Structure formats: structure tokens, C-alpha cells
């Protein structure tokens, strides 16, 4: 027997898209994305907006909302194209290039649509949208969904969870940074260093979620 065939017998390779859907698994995915493997605090995805847009609470909430929105759309688009176009034609290796194009165009599209149909929402989210194209959290969730072999449903749940986790970290960070504005921080640590320290403290605290549901 040919060794490579043999390996596929021994180490089973899960197929993309699982047929069954369980509430327990759904919960596990959400808890993992929001708390245990928080995108920012544990996976290091989306650090730049996390540091850049967390100076004020209002903008943090806006950014969070925009990220959740785009994450879900990007997941939908990238998953469908990956499994329906790239996989059938054996072009999986074009994944990165395809995804980034999808995300960039999506952001443009969302911007146009919002501007046209919901100016209020556009005003609220507009300034954050361009920033999002280069946010690794978005590309990250699209790629992770493929790497983790999530079905479309689980992928969408994962992206919502990731977005909520990102928003949670961002909003907490914004509150803490506002408090640091009136703190007696040593001169050397003012500015970004203290922001990193806050992130470190948050990251330690989030270790408390480790193993949740495990």
C-alpha cells in the first residue's frame, strides 16, 4: 500500500463543512473567541486598532461595531468563495490574495451602501471603515475559519464571537486608558508603554478564563 494513502487512513483529515450543528459546540466557539482566545489579548490580532482607537470610549464603541459588521461580511464572502470557487478548481493557494481582495472590496462596498442608504450609520462608522482594511483581525478570522475547518454556520458564529471579543477588549481598554489620563504615571512610561502595560494586565486577567468549558 502506498504510504500516502495509508496516512490518510490513520490520520483522518476532517472535511470542510461539518454536517452536524450543535448548540454546545456553538457556545464553545463563542466562549473561546470572546474570552479564552480573545483575539486581541491572547491571539494578538488587531493590535493596531486596539492601541490606536482606544483612547476614547465613544470611538472604541464605534470601531467595535464596525469590526463586528465587517468581520461577519468578510467571513461570509471569503468562506463562500473559498469552498465554492477556490477548492473546486484546486486554487487553495490563492486564499490569501483572494481574501484580501474580498475584504478590501467589501469595505469599499459597505462604505458606499451605508453612505447611500443609511447616512446616520455611515456617520457613526464611516471613519473607522478605511482603517479596517488593514486590520489583521478581519483577515485573521477569515483565515482561521478555514484553518479550523469550520462550517459556514460555525464560521459566522466564530466571526461574531471574534468581533465581540475585540470590542470587549477595546471598550475595557478605553475605560482604563481614560483613567490613566489622570494618573501619576512615571514619565518614562507615559503614552504607549502604559497602554501596553494595561494590555498586559488585561491579558493576565483573561487567563482566568483559561480552560472554560474544557
Amino acid at each position, binding site marked *: 500500500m502506498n504510504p500516502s494513502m495509508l496516512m490518510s487512513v490513520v490520520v483522518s483529515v476532517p472535511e470542510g463543512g461539518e454536517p452536524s450543528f450543535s448548540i454546545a459546540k456553538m457556545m464553545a466557539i463563542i466562549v473561546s473567541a470572546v474570552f479564552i482566545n480573545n483575539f486581541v489579548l491572547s*491571539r494578538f*490580532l488587531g493590535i*493596531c486598532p486596539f492601541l490606536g482607537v482606544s483612547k476614547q470610549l465613544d470611538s472604541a464603541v464605534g470601531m467595535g461595531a464596525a469590526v463586528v459588521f465587517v468581520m461577519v461580511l468578510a467571513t461570509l464572502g471569503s468562506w463562500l468563495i473559498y469552498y465554492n470557487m477556490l477548492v473546486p478548481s484546486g486554487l487553495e493557494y490563492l486564499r*490569501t490574495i483572494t481574501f484580501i481582495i474580498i475584504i478590501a472590496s467589501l469595505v469599499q462596498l459597505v462604505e458606499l451602501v451605508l453612505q447611500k442608504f443609511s447616512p446616520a450609520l455611515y456617520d457613526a462608522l464611516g471613519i473607522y471603515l478605511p482603517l479596517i482594511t*488593514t*486590520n489583521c483581525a478581519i*483577515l485573521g478570522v477569515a483565515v*482561521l475559519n478555514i484553518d479550523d475547518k469550520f462550517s459556514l454556520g460555525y464560521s459566522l458564529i466564530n466571526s461574531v464571537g471574534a468581533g465581540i471579543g475585540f470590542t470587549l477588549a477595546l471598550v475595557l481598554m478605553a475605560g482604563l486608558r481614560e483613567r490613566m489620563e489622570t494618573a501619576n504615571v512615571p*514619565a518614562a512610561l507615559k503614552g504607549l*508603554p502604559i497602554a501596553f502595560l494595561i494590555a498586559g494586565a488585561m491579558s493576565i486577567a483573561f487567563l482566568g478564563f483559561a480552560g472554560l468549558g474544557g
Partner: protein
Amino acid sequence: MSLAQNFSRGIVKDNPIFKQVLGMCPFLAVTTSVENALGMGAAATFVLVFSNFLVSLFRKVIPSKVRIPSYIVIIATFVTLVDLLMNAYLPALHQSLGIFIPLIVVNCIILGRAEGFANKNKVLPSVLDGIGMGLGFTLAMVVMATFREILGNGSWLGFNLLGESYQNQPLLIAILAPGAFIIMAFILGFFNIMEKRKRGGVK
């Protein structure tokens, strides 16, 4: 600006990590060991140099309307290239860098240099800039990874430095997520102090 400056600027003066604080995600994520840091640094440098090269070469040809999308495609192409090559020839490293290889696409350093430098400069300076920035990125990663690997694993580039007993009970947090944030905070604080000293000295 001299060619030498094009090259050297990215290493210390405008170091993309410590001075510009760009590309934080891969920086924090893969600096758990010096080996990973070198691998990531090399991959990013490769992409930086070639994307700068191509962008500079075609800067007059590409219409400004599609500039950014074209850059993204160019960058993504080289990232995929690195991804495939690394997977084929350095599978262990590929495994440990994981998702952060494809994410080089959105690394702000690379798009930033394409848009901010290569787009406006001749080929040679652009390539030198790419190499300089790439080395600066790599150097910063190695510095960070040095702290993390020594503290968190008692070793440097895999060589056991602090002995068996330390390795049995290392300061594990250094290679966990919080360690990255905290060590970076103090490195940046150190640079703050140096900067202040320097400015004070000039005065």
C-alpha cells in the same frame, strides 16, 4: 538622502517597531523564540524588498486610482510565495508562525513603505529602504524574542543558557501572551528614557 541613509534609517532611527510602533501583531505573536523571530523577520523582509522593488519599478505605469489595490495584490503575491516556499522547505517554522504568514499582507509596515516610499522613489533606494526596514523589523523581533526566550525558556535560539534547573521552572509568562505586552511596555519605556536623555544632552 544618501543611499546609505536609505538603508540604515529603518534599522535604528526609524525602526518600524520601536519608533513607529507598526506591525505589532506578528511582533507580539511570534517572538516567543528567536528562531521564530528570525523566520518571521526574513519572511517580512523578503516581501518588503520585492514589493518595494516592483512598486518602484511600475510606479509610473500604475494609475493612481488603483494604486492601493495593485499594491495589495503585489504584496499578497509575495506573501503567498513566501507561504508556499516556507511550507515546502521549512515546514516546522511554517507551522509555528502559522496564521501570521498570510497576515503579512496586512502588515502596515509593508503597505506603508510601498505607499510612503517606493511609490515616490527610484528602484535602488526603494530596495535599500526595503532591506533597511526589513532588517530593522527583524532586529526588533530578535531583541524582543531574546528577552522572551531567555526568560521564558532559559534558552537563546534553542541553546540552553540558564541550565536544566531553570528550564524546569522558567518564568513561563514571558512566552505567554501577557509577557509580550509587559516586556514591550518596558522596552518602549527604555526608549523613552533614552530619547529624553538624548534631548537633554543636546540642550
